[in-house]
């Protein structure tokens, strides 16, 4: 058995692929079926929260960046966001609003808003003022400038913000079982049922899912970057920025 | 250390992987105390040539001799501490005070504190900055002040050779003119050997004792004094690069005092009208110029002013433009054209009329091809010589055409 050679890791991997008895011997746990259930709940929760956060923060950030005011607001939101511990926020929601998918999702939305808002703001503000001036000069209206000039040019930065938010949310959703939402964090939070093998197995899956989502998003990012930006970017500095988003916040 | 000679001997530079050399068989010699300007279109290798001297780049073959000794025999760091270096972006250290910036090379050379401090203060005086500015940071200075500090830093260890790579390139035209004049005045006193890189032929003509025009591939197209270059361009390339207005550019090399001025008929109020009219016979211009007690021009007299027995102050027009003896001919001509007139009174340092500059006289100067046309540094040296306080004053004064007001 090669699993044995890997010690606790071998046991954990076996948990992922093969069903077994729970610690108390009352139910069957583990195996690809249950892991898949956890994973789909985990991703559903994360995507929902990120989507809602994007729907709120993106238009707001672009608008704030377009009118160029409230810089203090836009940047302090991200600072405050960084300082508030994810753990505290989730537990806060549970303690004050109770358990359930909606509540934990609302908490995750709050976590996801700051990086999206700040990056949208910074991205739009970062568009070369001469480009905006030229757009105004050829007769584009304010809305047209925002949607046809600023948005495409700010897209790499905006996408970075969403990517950071998504990764944070996936990581934080690990503690969602505290609110009775059975994500991949369930075996981590309840080793008395799933055993240490379940705990470690889930950790491995969570890590892989996070890295996978991050990688998939990076590919998406590359696909939506305007061609002109890719061609024109100065070789090193920009390529970095694309591949590796500036992580402005971390959570779990 | 005063100044060193610099000689390029068949210098060749080829970057690895490049199919053409960056510098090809470059030979010229710069005498001690001269400013040699390397000029040419972009990509001609002028900056490369300069950087070969302090081994920022190493040459492929040939020799560069600094005071007769090959630079390739020297350790780069040691060589560079001995050669002043000022570049376009200035490259001041934003995290160090002005004094610390100037003291960079003395510190590398392990000078003791007292000596370094004294040298920094001396240099601040020399470039006309208040000593209290030594405690400031570069960001607190104006662009022109930073540029001066850049030059002071390059001069800190009293190097016999100064390399300057487009040092005034990023400065607006008015300040550039001022800094050029200040540098020439400084050079009139210090007499360093200077290698100066620029792409601006006008700057080259103004600054250079000798000009090396390079063309693409690092070939030396011509090495000559500015006036030789303007009068006898070696080939079509030099002719084009110098510009179709090269005859006009020679005006930049001459001063009003260098050409034959017209004699003026000057009169004062209260003078006898008949005697005044008699003066016209002797003058080159049939108009009377009214001057004050000290001989300063007030304006051109109208006919009515002479109708009485004595001259009264009744002007047909002002005396503008008033030209100074030290003005560059080009500027004086420009003043005449701008004032829409053919004549302007020329005054000396005291402001007294010495003659009349006319379009005809300028034309005559342009036509005369022979004779020695002095370079700008020679002029600066002359004026520095006959006016001891010139250097420091000129630098500290914020006024424009400093060269003119020695």
């Amino acid at each position, binding site marked *: 058995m090669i699993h044995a050679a890997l010690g606790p890791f071998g046991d954990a991997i076996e948990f992922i692929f093969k069903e077994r008895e729970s610690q108390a011997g009352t139910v069957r746990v583990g195996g690809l079926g249950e892991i898949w259930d956890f994973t789909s709940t985990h991703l559903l929760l994360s995507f929902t929260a990120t989507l809602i956060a994007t729907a709120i923060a993106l238009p707001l950030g672009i608008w704030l960046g377009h009118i160029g005011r409230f810089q203090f607001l836009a940047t302090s939101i991200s600072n405050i966001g960084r300082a508030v511990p994810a753990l505290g926020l989730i537990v806060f929601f549970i303690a004050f609003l109770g358990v359930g998918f909606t509540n934990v999702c609302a908490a995750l939305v709050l976590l996801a808003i700051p990086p999206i808002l700040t990056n949208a703001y910074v991205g739009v503000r970062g568009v070369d003022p001469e480009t905006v001036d030229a757009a105004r000069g050829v007769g584009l209206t304010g809305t047209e400038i925002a949607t046809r000039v600023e948005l495409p040019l700010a897209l790499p930065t905006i996408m970075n913000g969403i990517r950071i938010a998504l990764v944070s949310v996936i990581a934080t959703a690990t503690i969602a079982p505290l609110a009775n939402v059975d994500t991949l964090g369930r075996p981590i939070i309840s080793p008395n049922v799933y055993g240490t093998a379940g705990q470690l197995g889930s950790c491995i899956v969570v890590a892989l899912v996070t890295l996978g989502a991050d990688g998939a998003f990076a590919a998406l990012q590359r696909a939506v970057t305007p061609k002109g930006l890719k061609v024109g970017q100065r070789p090193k500095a920009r390529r970095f920025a694309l591949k590796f988003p500036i992580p402005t916040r971390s959570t779990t | 250390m005063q100044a060193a000679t610099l000689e390029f001997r068949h210098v060749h530079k080829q970057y690895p992987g490049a199919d053409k050399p960056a510098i090809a068989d470059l030979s010229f010699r710069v005498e001690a105390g001269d400013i040699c300007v390397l000029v040419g279109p972009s990509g001609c290798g002028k900056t490369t040539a300069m950087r070969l001297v302090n081994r920022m780049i190493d040459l492929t073959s040939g020799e560069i001799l600094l005071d007769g000794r090959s630079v390739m025999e020297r350790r780069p760091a040691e060589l560079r501490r001995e050669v002043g270096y000022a570049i376009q972006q200035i490259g001041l250290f934003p*995290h160090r005070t002005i004094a610390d910036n100037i003291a960079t090379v003395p510190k590398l050379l392990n000078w003791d504190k007292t000596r370094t401090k004294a040298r920094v203060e001396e240099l601040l005086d020399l470039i006309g900055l208040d000593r209290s500015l030594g405690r400031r940071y570069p960001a607190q200075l104006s662009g022109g002040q930073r540029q001066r500090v850049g030059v002071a830093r390059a001069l800190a260890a009293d190097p016999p050779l100064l390399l300057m790579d487009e040092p005034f390139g990023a400065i607006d035209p008015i300040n550039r003119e001022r800094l050029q004049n200040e540098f020439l005045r400084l050079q009139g006193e210090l007499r360093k050997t200077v290698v100066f890189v620029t792409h601006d032929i006008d700057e080259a003509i103004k600054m250079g004792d000798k000009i090396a025009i390079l063309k693409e591939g690092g070939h030396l197209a011509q090495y000559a004094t500015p006036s030789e270059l303007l009068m006898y361009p070696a080939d079509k390339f030099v002719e084009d690069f110098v510009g179709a207005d090269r005859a006009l550019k020679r005006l930049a090399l001459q001063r009003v005092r260098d050409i034959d001025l017209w004699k003026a008929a000057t009169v004062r109020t209260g003078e006898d009208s008949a005697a005044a009219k008699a003066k016209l016979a002797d003058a080159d211009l049939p108009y009377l110029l009214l001057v004050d007690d000290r001989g300063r021009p007030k304006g051109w007299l109208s006919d009515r002013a002479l109708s009485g027995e004595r001259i009264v102050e009744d002007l047909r027009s002002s005396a503008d433009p008033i030209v100074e003896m030290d003005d560059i001919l080009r500027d004086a001509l420009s003043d005449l054209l701008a004032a829409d007139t053919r004549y302007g009174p020329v005054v000396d340092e005291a402001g007294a009329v010495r003659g009349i500059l006319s379009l005809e006289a300028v034309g005559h100067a342009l036509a005369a091809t022979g004779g020695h046309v002095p370079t700008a540094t020679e002029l600066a040296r002359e004026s520095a010589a006959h006016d001891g306080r010139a250097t420091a004053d000129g630098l500290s004064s914020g006024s424009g055409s400093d060269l003119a007001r020695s």
Partner: protein
Amino acid sequence: MSGLAVTPVLAQLSDDFFGDRQGAADRCPGNNELCPGWIVDNFTDYLNPLWEHVLLSVIPLAIGFVLATGLAMLAHRYPKLAPPFLAFVSILFTIPSIAFYLILINVTGRGFATAVVALTAYTQVLIFRNVLTGLREVPQGTVEAAQGMGMSSRQILFGVELPMALPTIFAGLRIAASSTVGIAGFAFFAGAGGLGQSIFADPRFRGNVVAASVLMILLAAALELAVLAVQRALTPWQRAVSR
């Protein structure tokens, strides 16, 4: 099953930490309310976790700073190293910390050291990136001027490039400081205590959650301010500019 059927370890903790609260006669804590009076009375219970949290934040930051700065200087010297370094530290950063802690205890065992290893790993990307960016943003002209005056590459690195990169480096360090405080909130998964342990010990009791969370936020703010103070002291020319 119950959502709060936490691990035996956690349940045990809860008893130790809040032994006096369970079944408290006082109505307020018994109803899981905010209870300011209870917080004041039991404030000393949070001092030990707070101190653990301080250590869990400061030690990884210090080690991480030295390590990441060294790596960034190396990557600055040998630019080919930069992309693999950055990819590696980015991946480390992406892994959720709970997973990281629990995977790591199977390698290095439970305890403070394991938490420090993980937290140090998380600081790397933030500090490394900013140090490298700071070094790269030093204008070419400044470096050339330094070379032209005969400074050695070591003199240029320590005398010119690093000082000029300080503002960017400190910006990274500030972000790393508050991030580390946040991630250290999960360090109890590695058996290293901290304020996260207090939160988890009784996550339904509002008074407890608020007290511990506020302490974490205050600690993050205090650390950021401390870093800012050091930055101000080390970069006098920055203040000169803004004057």
